[in-house]
């Protein structure tokens, strides 16, 4: 049974910081279908549209009927562990540092056999397991076999934690504590076992609504932080940058309207200054230290969360300049993801539909409650996913966008 994780001891600053290494990350293009699904928390395998055969490893043609019409479909992952091993040797630096390491050969009920990482609570073969896909530290999908039934402290498993970004016992910066989303995030992260939560607020000389409730949480330290001020970001990074394990950038500037209903560019510039340049300033100041701590013990630097918006995928003209700033942020976040990946630090992009806050007053429900958004982000960290579309609106827009982006553009313009 998994031992409950304990709070790590204070780090001895004289000792070496373990440098990040990655598991082998090369994949064929077709195999990235597994990664695409795992990035959203799904375990999908190719299924033949002609004969229904399920395929693994990923391939270009059906092993049963040679059809090339294979499509990725979600799988329940039920299967039987046929054989397991404990590696005591590896030629790979990442695994050498983590030996002994358990692997298994699982026959999925759906047909194929898979080589899988094993959760520590999976019993020796033969045993029923539930197979899923997770992103590893290289950001690529791997297959992981979990016990078929929940076990105590399951998330604390040593192997599973390598694939997750669990907030438990981690030090977290939430960049804006003044918003409803920021406050919900802080509470959810505290409940998830965060060790320490720094909460940024832009105007430290005055209390904001909810200030006292945050200040009461034992994990919380309030910090003056203004993402539009390069000096402010630099000073805070100098102070805490070497300790931040998870950075949640929820700072957001949101006004309605597009081009025609607005005079001048001041509002759009303010949106860009927070939503795009704010991310850029944070990435430049906090990125290097987090990259250096990608393998720093049990509570390493592990994730960077961006509050983007589903409007980043396709412009929503009634909130047109806001959409544009979120599209810019999304693009920059992809760059950040590429730069953080060599350190194994996951960039998690969150694409909510309209949030139930004051700037979406005129939007009809359903809207995402700040608490639900916060829960979705904590779950994403626990599951190690990197793209999150919380709420019904985001899910629906995503589906429409994937099916026909041009149609969605027309529909949003209507």
């Amino acid at each position, binding site marked *: 049974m998994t031992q409950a994780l304990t709070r790590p001891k204070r780090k001895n600053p004289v000792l070496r910081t373990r440098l990040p290494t990655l598991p082998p990350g090369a994949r*064929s293009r077709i195999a990235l279908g597994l990664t695409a699904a795992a990035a959203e928390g799904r375990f999908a395998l190719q299924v033949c549209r002609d004969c229904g055969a399920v395929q693994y*490893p990923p391939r270009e043609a059906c*092993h049963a009927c040679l059809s090339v019409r294979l499509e990725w479909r979600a799988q329940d992952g039920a299967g039987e562990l046929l054989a*397991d091993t404990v590696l*005591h040797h*590896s030629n790979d630096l*990442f695994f050498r540092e983590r030996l002994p390491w358990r*692997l298994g*050969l699982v026959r999925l009920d759906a047909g194929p*056999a898979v080589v899988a990482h094993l959760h520590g609570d999976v019993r020796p073969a033969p045993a029923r397991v539930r197979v899923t896909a997770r992103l590893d530290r290289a950001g690529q999908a791997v297959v992981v076999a979990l016990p078929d039934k929940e076990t105590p402290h399951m998330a604390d498993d040593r192997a599973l934690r390598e694939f997750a970004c669990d907030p438990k016992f981690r030090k977290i910066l939430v960049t804006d504590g003044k918003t409803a989303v920021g406050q919900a995030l802080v509470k959810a992260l505290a409940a998830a076992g965060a060790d320490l939560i720094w909460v940024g607020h832009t105007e430290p000389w005055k209390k904001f609504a909810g200030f006292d409730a945050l200040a009461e949480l034992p994990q919380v330290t309030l910090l003056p932080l203004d993402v539009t001020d390069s000096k402010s970001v630099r000073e805070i990074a100098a102070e805490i940058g070497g300790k931040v394990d998870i950075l949640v950038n929820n700072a957001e500037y949101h006004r309605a309207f597009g081009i025609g209903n607005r005079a001048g560019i001041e509002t759009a510039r303010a949106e860009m200054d927070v939503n795009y340049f704010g991310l850029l300033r944070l990435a430049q100041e906090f990125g290097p230290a987090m990259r250096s701590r990608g393998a720093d013990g049990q509570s390493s630097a592990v994730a960077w969360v961006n509050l983007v918006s589903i409007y980043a995928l396709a412009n929503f003209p009634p909130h047109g300049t806001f959409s544009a700033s979120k599209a810019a942020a999304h693009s920059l976040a992809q760059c950040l993801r590429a730069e953080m990946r060599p350190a194994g630090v996951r960039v998690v992009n969150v694409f909510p539909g309209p949030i139930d806050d004051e700037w979406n007053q005129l939007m009809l429900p359903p809207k995402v409650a700040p608490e639900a958004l916060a829960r979705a982000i904590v779950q994403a960290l626990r599951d190690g996913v990197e793209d999150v579309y919380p709420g019904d609106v985001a899910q629906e827009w995503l589906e429409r966008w994937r099916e026909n982006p041009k149609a969605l553009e027309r529909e949003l313009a209507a």
Partner: protein
Amino acid sequence: MSARRGYDGVAVAVPVTVPYVRYSVRSAHWWLARALGELLERAGLGKEAVDGLTVSSFTLAPDTAIGLTQHLGVSPRWLDHVPLGGASGIVALRRAARAVQAGDAEIVACVAGDTNHVDSFRLTLANFSQFARDAVYPYGAGGPNASFAFLTAYYMRTYGATREDFGKLCVAQRANALKYPHALFKKPLTLKEYLSARPIAEPLHLFDCVMPCAGAEAFLVLAEERARALDVPYARVLGAVERHNAFPSDPIQMRAGWALERDALYAQAGVAADEVDFVETYDDYPVISVMQLEDLGFCGKGEGPAFVRENTFTHDGSFPLNTSGGQLSVGQAGAAGGFLGLVEAIRQLTGAAGDRQVAGAKVGLASGFGMINFDRGLGSGAAILAAP
């Protein structure tokens, strides 16, 4: 099954081993050149006399057989690249034998060799196959160790084999290797040492795993009368089979293509399993040797453990097996590992096996197995050779 044409009149001769080393700074071309050079020298032939060539190597990239012809200055009229790893020897023999029978080539040199730089093995594993790169290598196993750990664990659980059973094979092969000058392992191995070795991928321990090294193996395929004219000792090819990706729906590999081809092999060879005087299995891990003994009909499926307990496997004992020590005691020189058993079989049948000669060896069987593409070995083959 339609009748298969036999290999009448085909001889294999001039067993060559370029002495192995653990690491080499030379490239694969160097090892293959030495193998071909020794073949020619011992056969007393010039380069132009060898008009057929097969090449097997993992580390020859970016070259293949065709590039090697210019590198070595040979102009064959028949050429084949056989990149089938541990199945390369049997497959190269089959291809070459048919070429000789058809008159497409008179004398075919079958060469296999690989270098082993300090980092070669890791690089070979990282780029071994698409399935391996996508679905095995990212899991940290370092090549076939994990796959064979699964097979070994499953076999032990299903058929009651013990570590002592696999250890008995390793210990017997080491005893054989002590009489084979080219074996890299020179010290005796005891069962106690085998059992107390450090774990690699449970249930596999150190002596269950082959050691990668550099080396080359080669032989000539030619007509019997040509071998006699050259005055080189030779063995006859009685039968040879190959089968790839057999039993693809088996959830885990407990048998391979030998089980499908065995009857055809013995029918073609005109001998029965109990008439075989010695066997050279492909032995990168002992479990696969046991599976070959089962699939090739020396005992039934699942009877491997009992068969191991009943025999001694030394060259001078009951059921001589891997008489030069096999890859487990000689070393695994890449694709040359797929030639090692065949080359040793030629030595045994031409009375060239020195202190480890199997007394009265008339008929020998060599088998190959190769290419752990994902969770199992895909290629398998076997050949039965006989003294003239």
